């Protein structure tokens, strides 16, 4: 009880002293990083869970490129199940002269079977859940779509050959993540209107689905019953399958974010250990005094533990507030990427972060504080009497246990934990050695500089170990920031430069055979080159060398997917200029023999196909067999229409065919596209530029969010610097006073201290630039298959940022020593 009173009484006062603030900041940072990421992953997790339940808008979803036969819904009804049907396809929607590409979703009564559709009664108005579907003659359109075409509720939209009235703003539909929706805004229309719209032609890119829902047992029975009778073209998606995929993706994202948070945590741990040592050292005199006045070891320990707990609680409080704020910012940045209305985060992240903070304190601060108990009371008479150093085993054991405990939550697998800890140890040791090397070089360079610099550089090498730790801590934070800013821009720029200036930026799809000639003329009339039209036939591979594609073994999963999915086939007499023949021979221009096929290189490898293999396709009720005659490499970046599988002319004759084309359309020519789509409503125009823009936007936002998480890393680096400076502040004060007593001007002392920080900053900057360059090269070559170009600016910015950040932080950390008047310092007794 006495210990509690004493601990409380002294704590407030201690708080105001710098070293406790650094300790507190380190704990708060760790908690802040963990809660922010915790909140975020919690939200992502909840959003994913909800999405997984609703993503099908049903319990089972039978998807097909052809209309689902009526017998399927009758069969489902026989099992007592509810059904609904949907069709979706991209199409251009008009309002007056304005047009935009939309994802048209045609729905029947009963939709959705699971989840709710939400609409608003005005643009950006409050949303509400609705029962039922739009009435015939009406549509519910996404706000983005309405904004793009400048329409509002009550206005008419032209879709195909009919006009439909907007009766509500669509804000949410459960299956919006399926299909084309992620790239084009949605529009819901009643199935009763589809036949007169003229949108559905033979070979149109329509995705049909039969939704089934009901009692779980009945759904399972139905699912089993249809398995054997399912035509090749129908794919069944069940809840489990879709949720598993969603969870996997979310899980990976969460682990990545958790690991970034752990990085801040580890740096915070370094700061905690440093400032705890300093804290303990500063309290040694007080403890010796208390012991001389009769305090027991138990009392000393109790006071230390209580104060540690108080510190932890305060750290958790401050950190949670920081975390809340950061999460608020992060989820605002990410709002478009995750979902418009994320569920509120639970308090779980705060609890977990609090636990982690306590583990951090116990692992990294406790050893130093426990050691206080052994302070000899003799210290009141002889200042050099020190407690014995804490046992290395205790210190390293506790900190290792703490790190393991903290990491385990993010990793969740003992084997991975061992690998990760070994990896971290090796990397930390390597970085530390590099840091020591840089510090050594700094020490060597001091003979050729002036007095202030010499004093500063001498300090760097005198405190070699602490200097190296600071260089590494700061360097790590900087590395990541450089990666996410400069390197990311470099990579995006590099990729953009590999694209041909004249590369097509628009795709036309769904061109009917009878429209090809007219569309060509249309462009000619508008003063443009007539583009080439590439035929497209939808088919399904059924067998390879007589073996069913379902039973066959594939080198990898991509191969299985390729062989089993709905395939787009094409045929041509001449190989496209964007292809390169790798193996076999291309068929002669006037070839009219048995069907031959050419396969794209990567697909051939994945599916284990070689020249001479025989592929059988099922196309609109007929079978076509072709022999592989060649293997090609495709330059996808050319943005020309390209296909994994291309057949010889004549092989697909008389099959339902649509044509696709690509072309470069300048901004001032875009108006003409409106006329084109008006005249040929089934043709869809895809603006690649807009899509690339969108992709870039997503990358920017995602990296901005990750950057925000890494700001914690940099802040933790600053905390390490503060802790390191704090631990030498008495020494610094004394030295400043001595130097000034010896006749140094304040300016000289200031320059000396700044020289020290500048040197540390240069070293951290070099480390960060090197790290970012290596990582960038790996990412460029391995991930993006781009040649990595050395960017000297990276080094300039890295070193400049290092010097700037370390000098600013160092100045604030050490200003007490710089500004202390010699007289104050020499009046030392308390």
């Amino acid at each position: 009880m006495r210990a509690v009173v004493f601990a409380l009484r002294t704590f407030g006062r201690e708080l105001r002293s710098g070293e406790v603030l650094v300790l507190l900041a380190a704990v708060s940072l760790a908690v802040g990083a963990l809660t922010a990421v915790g909140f975020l992953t919690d939200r992502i997790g909840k959003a994913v869970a909800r999405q997984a339940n609703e993503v099908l808008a049903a319990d089972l979803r039978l998807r097909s490129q052809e209309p689902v036969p009526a017998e399927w819904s009758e069969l489902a009804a026989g099992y007592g199940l509810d059904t609904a049907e949907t069709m979706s396809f991209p199409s251009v929607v008009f309002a007056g002269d304005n047009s935009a590409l939309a994802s048209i979703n045609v729905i029947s009564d009963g939709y959705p079977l699971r989840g709710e559709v939400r609409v608003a009664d005005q643009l950006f108005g409050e949303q509400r859940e609705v029962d039922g579907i739009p009435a015939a003659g009406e549509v519910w359109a996404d706000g983005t779509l309405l904004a793009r075409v400048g329409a509002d509720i009550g206005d008419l939209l032209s879709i195909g050959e009919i006009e439909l009235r907007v009766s509500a703003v669509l804000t949410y539909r459960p299956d919006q993540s399926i299909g084309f929706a992620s790239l084009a805004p949605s529009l819901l229309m009643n199935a009763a209107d589809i036949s007169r719209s003229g949108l559905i032609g033979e070979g149109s890119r329509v995705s049909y689905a039969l939704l089934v829902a009901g009692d779980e047992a009945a759904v399972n029975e139905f699912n089993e019953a249809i398995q054997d009778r399912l035509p090749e073209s129908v794919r069944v998606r069940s809840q489990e399958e879709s949720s598993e995929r969603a969870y996997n993706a979310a899980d990976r994202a969460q682990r990545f974010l958790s690991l970034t948070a752990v990085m801040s945590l580890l740096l915070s741990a370094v700061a905690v250990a440093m400032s705890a040592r300093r804290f303990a050292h500063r309290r040694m005199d007080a403890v010796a005094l208390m012991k001389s006045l009769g305090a027991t070891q138990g009392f000393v320990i109790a006071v230390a533990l209580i104060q540690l707990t108080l510190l932890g609680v305060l750290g958790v409080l401050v950190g949670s507030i920081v975390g809340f704020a950061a999460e608020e910012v992060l989820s605002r940045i990410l709002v478009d990427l995750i979902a418009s209305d994320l569920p509120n985060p639970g308090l779980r992240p705060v609890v977990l972060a609090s636990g982690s903070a306590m583990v951090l304190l116990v692992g990294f601060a406790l050893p130093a504080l426990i050691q206080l108990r052994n302070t000899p009371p003799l210290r009141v008479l002889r200042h050099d009497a020190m407690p014995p150093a804490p046992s290395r085993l205790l210190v390293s054991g506790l900190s290792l246990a703490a790190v393991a405990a903290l990491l385990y939550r993010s990793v969740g697998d003992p084997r991975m934990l061992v690998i990760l800890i070994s990896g971290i140890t090796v990397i930390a040791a390597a970085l530390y050695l590099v840091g020591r090397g840089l510090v050594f070089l700094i020490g060597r360079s001091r003979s050729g500089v002036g007095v202030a610099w010499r004093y500063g550089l001498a300090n760097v090498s005198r405190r070699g170990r602490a200097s190296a730790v600071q260089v590494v801590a700061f360097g790590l934070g900087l590395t990541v920031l450089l990666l996410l800013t400069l390197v990311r821009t470099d990579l995006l720029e590099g990729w953009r430069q590999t694209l041909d200036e004249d590369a097509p930026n628009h795709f036309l799809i769904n061109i009917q055979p009878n429209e090809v000639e007219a569309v060509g003329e249309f462009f000619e009339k508008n003063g443009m080159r007539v583009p080439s039209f590439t035929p497209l036939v939808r088919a399904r591979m059924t067998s390879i060398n007589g073996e069913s594609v379902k039973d066959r073994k594939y080198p990898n999963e991509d191969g299985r997917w390729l062989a089993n999915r709905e395939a787009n086939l094409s045929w041509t007499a001449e190989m496209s200029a964007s292809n390169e023949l790798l193996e076999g021979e291309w068929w002669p221009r006037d070839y009219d023999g048995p069907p031959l096929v050419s396969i794209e290189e990567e697909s051939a490898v994945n599916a284990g196909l070689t020249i001479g293999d025989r592929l059988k396709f099922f196309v609109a009720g007929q079978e076509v067999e072709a022999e592989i005659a060649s293997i090609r490499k495709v330059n996808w970046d050319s943005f020309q229409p390209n296909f994994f599988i291309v057949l010889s002319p004549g092989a697909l004759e008389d099959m339902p065919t649509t044509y696709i084309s690509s072309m470069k359309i300048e901004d001032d020519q875009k108006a003409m596209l409106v006329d084109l789509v008006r005249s040929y409503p089934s043709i869809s125009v895809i603006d690649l530029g807009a899509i690339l823009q969108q992709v870039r936007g997503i990358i920017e936002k995602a990296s901005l969010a990750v950057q925000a998480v890494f700001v914690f890393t940099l802040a933790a680096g600053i905390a390490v610097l503060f802790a390191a400076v704090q631990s030498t502040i008495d020494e610094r004060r004394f030295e400043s006073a001595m130097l000034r007593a010896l006749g140094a001007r304040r300016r000289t002392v200031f320059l000396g201290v700044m020289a020290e920080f500048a040197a540390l900053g240069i070293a951290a900057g070099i480390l960060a630039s090197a790290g970012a360059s290596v990582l960038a090269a790996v990412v460029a070559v391995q991930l993006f298959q781009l040649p990595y170009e050395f960017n000297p600016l990276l080094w300039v910015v890295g070193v400049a940022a290092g010097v700037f950040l370390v000098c600013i932080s160092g100045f604030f950390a050490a200003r007490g020593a710089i500004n202390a008047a010699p007289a104050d310092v020499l009046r030392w007794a308390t």
Partner: protein
Amino acid sequence: MENELVSKDVVLEAIEVSKQVSSPEGSLTILSEVSFRIAAGESVAVVGPSGAGKSTLLALLAGLDLPSSGYVVLNGANLSELDEDGRAGVRADSVGFVFQSFHLVPSLNALENVMLPLELAGKNDARAAARRIIEQVGLKDRWSHYPSQLSGGEKQRVAIARAFATEPAVLFADEPTGNLDSRTGANIMELMFELNRSSRTTLILVTHDQSLAMRCDRMLSLDGGRLVSDSEVAA
């Protein structure tokens, strides 16, 4: 413990106390077989040149450190038989300190510094007792000040108040005026002797200052770790 040596009047006794420390040059003897008895209420000055072993003797007498051989019996307790917490208990009950460099806890204000030993000894009403003694040392208006806001003399007054707060059997003072100017020092000593008389505390004063030593009842002179004289001071 040799019972016949303990008499009611003896509050502190050193029996053949020696202290050796190991140094790079081998074992170094700081104190060599020092023996004496001090009766309750006596004031004793420990004098001698620098390095004579005065501070070491003080540390051993107060149980801050243990002798290499010999015993110290403080208020009836053989300190060598106690562990660190046991010695802390003896100090809490019967010892007060005044140091050359004050040793106030910087994070506590004057009153709280004085309350500290009272609370450690488990005394009730520590605050009221501390207030009384703070008034006695003339710091009635400064009780809420922190050490950094007090002058050297004021700090030492707080330290003296803290030392007398528990009404200790023995008060150890280690060069209490060493960090003060002569006038302030004289005032402080006046205060200390006055409190010593009024509370009948035994005072052990380590000092260089011959005039200060002459004000005590008795003087122990150390040189080279040996007790070279033990004499009454003629008043």
